[in-house]
């Protein structure tokens, strides 16, 4: 895993994690950033050159000062692809990252060759409300994202090098970024833009996601022309970490077609 900082045309700096070899693949992380031991990224890296931008704010909240809404955010990611000379690239996003991936594809459809949304958030149904991601101490968020209520595998191993305060700061910073774009509920108009997404698209969701009800996968699928949806039994919101093999079995061939 290699970490580099690139300069964007906007004048902002952007941190990029690179790992693996093969065709380019952009990974947009979820609520936890890209931990050094990220087991799903490691799996992707076996087949792809994974390019994983760290979402602005995850390292320093001041990075969000001029990124005021989801439109600014989508254009920021467009700037990243420009700086990386990725004219057209495959993109996978998880959770909050899946929302960014969908916004990117809706804002600049031609740049996204293939799109996979894992446990996406960013739309709202009055009849099946998304659970409140913020109306709970963020230290208890595991209960809302893991089907079993606690992290499993390498994601359950806490980084011992950071003290308890810094671990909390890291979590708070990431959740603050998510809150900036999803407060008070996750509907910033994405459903009005989904039709603009023209790439072949795949939606994967966990049937036991405590955060996002099952019906949402269909909202995303139906909103994007010709998208496919796959529901994984027994998985929660942390789908790619809970059932890495099951997810990869369908996901990797889909990303490699062409």
């Amino acid at each position: 895993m290699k970490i580099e900082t690139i300069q964007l045309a906007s004048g902002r700096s952007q941190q990029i994690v690179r790992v693996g070899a093969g065709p380019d693949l952009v990974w947009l992380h979820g609520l936890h950033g890209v931990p050094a031991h990220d087991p799903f990224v490691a799996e992707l890296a076996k087949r792809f050159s994974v390019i994983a931008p760290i979402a602005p704010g995850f390292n320093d909240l001041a990075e969000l000062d001029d990124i005021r809404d989801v439109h600014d955010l989508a254009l920021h990611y467009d700037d990243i692809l420009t700086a990386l000379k990725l004219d057209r690239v495959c993109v996978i996003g998880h959770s909050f990252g899946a929302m960014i991936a969908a916004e990117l594809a809706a804002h600049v459809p031609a740049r996204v060759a293939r799109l996979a949304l894992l446990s996406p958030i960013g739309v709202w149904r009055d009849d099946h409300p998304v659970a409140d991601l913020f109306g709970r101490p963020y230290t208890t968020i595991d209960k809302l994202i893991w089907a079993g209520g606690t992290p499993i595998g390498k994601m359950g191993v806490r980084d011992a090098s950071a003290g308890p305060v810094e671990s909390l700061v890291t979590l708070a910073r990431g959740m603050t970024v998510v809150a900036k774009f999803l407060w008070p509920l996750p509907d910033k108009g994405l459903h009005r833009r989904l039709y603009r997404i023209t790439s072949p698209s795949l939606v994967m969701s966990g049937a036991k996601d405590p955060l996002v009800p099952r019906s949402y996968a269909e909202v995303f699928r139906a909103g994007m022309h010709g998208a496919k949806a796959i529901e994984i039994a027994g998985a929660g919101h942390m789908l790619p970490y809970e059932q890495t093999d099951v997810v990869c079995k369908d996901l990797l061939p889909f990303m490699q077609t062409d």
Partner: protein
Amino acid sequence: MKFHWFHLMPYPDLPDDFRQRYAGVWVDPPVRELFDPKRGHAAYNDYLDELEHAERAGFDGICVNEHHQNAYGLMPSPNLMVAALARRTTRAKLVIMGNSPALYNPPIRVAEEMAMLDVLSGGRIVSGFPVGTPMDTTFCYGENPATLREKYREAVALILRAWTEKRPFAFNGKYTQLRYVNVWPQPMQQPHPPIWIPGGGSVETWDWCVQNDFLYAYLSYFGYKAGLATMKGFWEVVDKLGVAANPYRAGFLQFVAVADSDAEAERLYAKHALYFYNRCLHISPSFANPPGYTSIATMRKGIEGQVARAAAMSPDLTWKDIVERGYVVAGSAATVVDRLNDMADAMRVGHLMVLCHFGDMPKDKVYQNTERFARDVIPKLRPRFNEWEDKWWPKDAPPVQAPASLQPA
């Protein structure tokens, strides 16, 4: 020292098993189940009587504040209460420890209403600008915790400009855009009413208050012993910035219960204090600290906010706990004077806000507590800090006309 009489306006009829049956007192306790408008009618009128009584008893200021969807704070609009008080009082200053400027769109609404009240009351307004608790601002009013503080600072700056610019101006803010800012009326106090910033312990607020010459008021439910670290932090910033440590730049909120003896204080007031601490302060941890509300610097400093503290509080406190920990300063007048002298020594606060009403205390006890404090405690502490000029308080001049309805026939 100056003394201000503060009302929270709690709903007085929360059930005995409130803590067991409901997740918390704030944001989502179902109003249809818990609130009876007839009881509310009586409570509001009692509470206004009590605030008016505090003026008669000799307090310098009477204070109200702002909370939303909260069973212990029935004042979503403190301004409405002050409008009523402005017509029924003539001397006491009216300390408004709302409004949270970020909640009003556009924030010049706050500039307008404060100016209206200042003109109506003859220049007796103190304008408090709290950021607002996480419950009030982010969960009840939908403000984004990631941007709340920035929006708040911008709103305060806009209000101050609206009160001081010589000509109408355009405001192109990040959160508010207005082509014409020209607030009618303007406040009677010039350039504007004193600005008080109620804080819960954010490190950034200290610097900002001192740099802008705002009063910093620490509104604690946990008394002076617990508040000491926060006030120490504030005075360190005053010192660091090379500003005179005038005690009148600081305010503090304290529950007090005065009786003939310490034992009588318990007999009279324990029940009502326990109603407040064990029911009203039953705050759900779910709403106490949304991501972004507490800055990273404050997290690293290890300062716990008021409401986070309440949410983490152990249930079923006893009167002994409450008094020993200093949450309520209670006892004979001599005991209360001693404790408040200790507090004044340690915290250096020129403006003491006291809660003589708490929980479900009935009016006769509130009057008793208020009168005893005014008669037996205030005179003993009054001379403290006399050597300092209070620049954070409305001036008595110019003399103002009392409403005709209040003048002797």
